[in-house]
């Protein structure tokens, strides 16, 4: 059955990702609680807070690596429990670690990651040159610097057609040129209707970014 196309303005109006009063406990110690927010297409959310406030935990939870202790997450209006596979195929998560194999070349790394994003498009060469790694496609990643390895992970963003980007400190070890490229990429993504959630300690050179401030949980 062909999906009925919603008119564009309505499409952008209803929230695509909603968190309703979610809480997380690690080892019975509350990390955060009572968190609620809604994101629409085209929005960017920066999660900020001191170390230990639970930013990475929140991002991992949104990436479904962790499950909330209470509360609900809704994706396109549906409870996450019911549409987990669809949600996972529509998101891309870049965490603290690069998430690439050091023994493989950048080209090979992107190649084996492609089937996990079934609707990925574009060529590995274009993606790698877009992050400034042209010429290094066939050197084993172990010979690249930490910043270059990070760029290989960022090249995934060029190939994937996922709507939701969850980026945990994506600017780590990236030089100024790389930072501006990444910011442009994120802006392009949101203007196409995508959603970006990120944490960063650096000031973002973008406007229109929503802010979620997290404070370390204090037991009453």
């Amino acid at each position, binding site marked *: 059955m062909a999906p009925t196309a919603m008119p564009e303005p309505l499409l952008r109006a209803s929230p695509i990702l909603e968190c309703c009063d979610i809480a997380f406990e690690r080892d019975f110690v509350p990390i955060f609680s009572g968190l609620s927010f809604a994101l629409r297409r085209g929005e960017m959310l920066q999660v900020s807070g001191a170390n230990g406030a639970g930013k990475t935990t929140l991002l991992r939870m949104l990436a479904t690596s962790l*499950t909330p202790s209470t509360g609900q997450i809704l994706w396109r209006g549906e409870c996450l429990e019911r549409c987990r596979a669809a949600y996972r195929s529509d998101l891309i998560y870049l965490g603290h670690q690069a998430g690439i194999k050091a023994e493989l070349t950048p080209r090979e790394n992107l190649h084996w990651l492609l089937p996990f994003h079934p609707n990925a498009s574009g060529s590995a060469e274009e993606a790698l040159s877009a992050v400034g790694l042209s010429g290094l496609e066939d050197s084993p990643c172990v010979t690249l610097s930490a910043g270059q390895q990070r760029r290989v992970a960022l090249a995934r963003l060029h190939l994937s057609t996922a709507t939701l980007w969850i980026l945990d400190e994506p600017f780590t070890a990236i030089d100024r040129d790389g930072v501006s490229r990444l910011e442009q990429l994120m802006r392009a993504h949101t203007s196409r209707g995508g959603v970006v959630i990120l944490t960063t300690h650096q000031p973002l050179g973008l406007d229109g970014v929503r802010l979620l401030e997290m404070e370390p949980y204090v037991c009453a």
Partner: protein
Amino acid sequence: MSAPDVVPTLATGRAFRALLARDLTLAFRHRGEMANPLIFFVMVATLIPLGVTPESRQLAVLAPGVIWVMALLASLLSAESLFLADYRDGTLEQLVLSPQPLWLMVLAKITVHWLVTGLPLTLLSPLLGIMLSLPAAGFGPLMVSLALGTAALSMIGAIGAALTVAISRGGLLLSLIVMPLYMPVLIFGASAVQLAVDGMSPAGNLAVLGALLAFSCLLSPFATAGALRVSLHG
């Protein structure tokens, strides 16, 4: 993104094959590490004549069980490497987050693990048979029992590897928790060879080994997937 309500296909088969190919490539780039359990296997065979007796007839009595125990230990040594590297560089988390069913991805990894450790062990076992004076009747059943048995051991070891991947120096703990689960495989594998050497048919034992393998193939991917999520959650 132009058709937001269409759920993209999961391309599960392609993902399975991609993971298989990736892990095989990685294993071959680490050819040296791949050889370690095999070298261990051959070296410990030398310990028995040195520590017990070099006398051929006595070795022949011990051979079926000893070869099997050595194969079990070599398998145990290699079990830790199943998920550890992926956990350290973050690719394990990416695998757990992927939309494809985790149990199927785990099955791909275990398959490669067996191809890279269990299968070479099986192919190397006749050499040990010669070194330990295994009677001729035992060689065939030895290889068949090891082929089936090491596959079951890989399956069972994966559960332990998944449970201990987040623990520092978890290798010894892995051996502890997996060893009791290994015992039925050892019993039926070693006795299959023993029966053949004694002139009886090992077919029944080999069938039981096959059943153990089937049971572990059914149980292990799901238990391992669950254990991986627990490890990453903690």
